[in-house]
């Protein structure tokens, strides 16, 4: 069964209930909160959430308070996929025995970039390979923001973090971001996609599709963090949209192996003049300040732009452009 991504309109979405309440302790301007609320707007049946250790987990559930209005479980940092796979198996077994009465239950996992690219990848790979019916959502703000902005496998090139600081010799993070979506897609699971809280209709549609598909689904959400990426909190959504407009985080889906660009990226594919130069994004965030001050580092900007272009060209090819 090939799944269609539902096409939502913002005016319809405003009436949808959310299951992530206000009063949580995420920072002002944190895109993880926007993402969490958008994700829950896609819920339409009994749903459970499994959360890796991270900002979203810590800030939403400081005892005795919880921002979650659906069952929610946190166990540890690296294992939320494994935890959820156990719950999925449990529900299956209990339905078979007649001891679980809520019926078909959607399972959502939230993990950050550290918990996904790095310490959690084994548990994720195993869970996907075993074919559990669940949706893993990676919210990727490009570093271990919760523990003090350390680099992860998801940290973009050149970004200055507390463990890849821009120094006199080393210009921030020396690696390009691990191509996590390709790695996940290589598991041949039925649904893989990227999304951004700057494009809520697209994100919510993909969450729904990921939950409706029979088997594992994965959604890679780019999320901004004004503390770790160093910018004005008011600019959070505007800046995260630049990750898509520059093609650093293109929006697409891989359904049963078939790549399809989503609207914001398809626009650029059809009209390359709409592709925003990476520099326009980099210069706005403090994590790349050393690309521009005290002297402009043309070679770093060019190196990063070349890699983004290369990956974008590869994606265009896969998507049939």
């Amino acid at each position, binding site marked *: 069964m090939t799944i269609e991504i539902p096409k939502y309109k913002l005016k319809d979405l405003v009436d949808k209930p959310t299951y992530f309440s206000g009063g949580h302790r995420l920072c002002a301007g944190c895109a993880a909160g926007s993402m969490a609320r958008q994700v829950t707007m896609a819920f339409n049946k009994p749903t459970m959430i499994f959360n890796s250790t991270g900002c979203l987990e810590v800030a939403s559930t400081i005892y005795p308070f919880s921002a979650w209005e659906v069952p929610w479980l946190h166990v540890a940092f690296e294992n939320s996929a*494994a935890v959820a796979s156990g719950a999925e198996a449990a529900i299956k077994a209990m339905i*078979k025995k007649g001891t679980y009465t809520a019926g078909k239950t959607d399972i959502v996992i939230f993990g950050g970039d550290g918990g996904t690219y790095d310490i959690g990848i084994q548990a994720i790979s195993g869970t996907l390979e075993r074919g559990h019916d669940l949706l893993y959502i990676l919210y990727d703000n490009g570093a271990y923001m919760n523990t003090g902005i350390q680099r992860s496998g998801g940290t973009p090139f050149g970004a200055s973090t507390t463990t890849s600081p821009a120094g006199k010799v080393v210009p921030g993070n020396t690696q390009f971001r691990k191509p996590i979506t390709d790695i996940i897609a290589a598991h041949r699971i039925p649904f893989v996609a990227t999304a951004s809280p700057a494009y809520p209709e697209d994100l919510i549609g993909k969450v729904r599709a990921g939950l409706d598909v029979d088997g594992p689904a994965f959604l890679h959400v780019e999320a901004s963090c004004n503390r770790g990426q160093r910018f004005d909190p008011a600019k959070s959504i505007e800046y995260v949209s630049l990750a898509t407009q520059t093609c650093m985080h293109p929006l697409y889906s891989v359904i049963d192996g078939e790549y399809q660009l989503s609207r914001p990226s398809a626009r650029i594919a059809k009209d390359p003049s709409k592709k925003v130069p990476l520099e326009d994004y980099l210069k706005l965030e403090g994590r790349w300040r050393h690309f521009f001050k005290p002297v402009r580092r043309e070679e770093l900007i060019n190196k990063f732009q070349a890699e983004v272009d290369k990956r974008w060209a590869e994606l265009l090819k896969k998507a049939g452009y």
Partner: protein
Amino acid sequence: MTRIAVTGDDAVAEAAKSVNPDVVAAYPITPQTIIVERFADFVADGEVDTEFVTVESEHSAMSACVGASSAGARVFTSSASAGLMLMYEIIFVAASSRTPIVMAIANRAISGPINIHGELTDQMLFRDSGWVSMFSEDNQEAHDQTIMAFKIGEHPNVLLPVGVGLDGFIISHAIEGIEPVSREVTQKFLGGERKAALKLDTTKPLSIGLLHLQDYYMEARAQVRDAHERSRKVILEVFNEWEKLTGRKYKPVESYKMDDAEYAFLTMGSTAGNARTAVDDLRAKGEKVGLIKIRVYRPFFGDDVTELCKNLKGLITIERSHNFGGPGGILSSDIKSALFNKRLSPLLAEYTIGLGGRDTLIKDYYSIYNRSKEAFNTGKSLPLFWWGVRE
């Protein structure tokens, strides 16, 4: 009941089959036990209704167990040694999440150097995790305790995971006759399927595993402490009920020929078998010696131990486990604390034996006894000694 000849692993797998858990999540790390292989056969042949999750690591095995148990399922797994060490982080969360998972542990030596043979240290090291932890002397005990573990852990006053140890190879791979308990008897004993009061319930949304800071962390840990205390009574009740059902008597601390004993061996796990034979032989030679066996290691039934020790001239602790730089062995340190609490101070000789599966024969027990008694006769205790190690 019909008796069958099976290995300890098979005895545990048969017990799990009679329980018919909702979920088994397990991983065959070195060292592997046959428990889950046998259970996989039951799944493949449709003899159980279990969802069998073949996870990609022991860490994920315990994680999947916590997820499944939090969803309200009855959950079983097994592990040992290096695999158990990989689980450790989640072992603690399993207790604090109050998930009554049952884990059979074919106790084996921990790395390094790598070894795959019998030793209890692996399970003893999670004594402070909040798990109920008990050990078996033989295949029948491993079988029975696996079933009883579910009833203890799932009791509403407990809600804690339970570990059932069986010595690697000595029990896990050795064939003995057991009387297996049928599915029907087990289900009646357990009162049907698990009834989880607190779980991930979509009709009553609950958040589990929240961040507890300075203002609540101690209270959260105290709840595990209190549950652990309450488990003492439940363990006794479950053991009594089991005796009524099967005629097999279980006690947290057991004794053998202790009534008039002046000296005693104290041990845990399969070691009690050889110690028992040594007691018989020494008794035949006129020695007034008995045996104390610790079955339930956590919670520790210290008063039951001291009650048995109050008339002793000398106590000989023998443990197939080890530590470094402590105030004694792992087990003997507990024993010394329990004795101190009761202001008892029998002469004491402490031994670590049989690490990494090294044989400790009955004749070794004679030697240990003679060496200890000689010291006791001169009014001396003996510090922890690694028996049989080539220095």
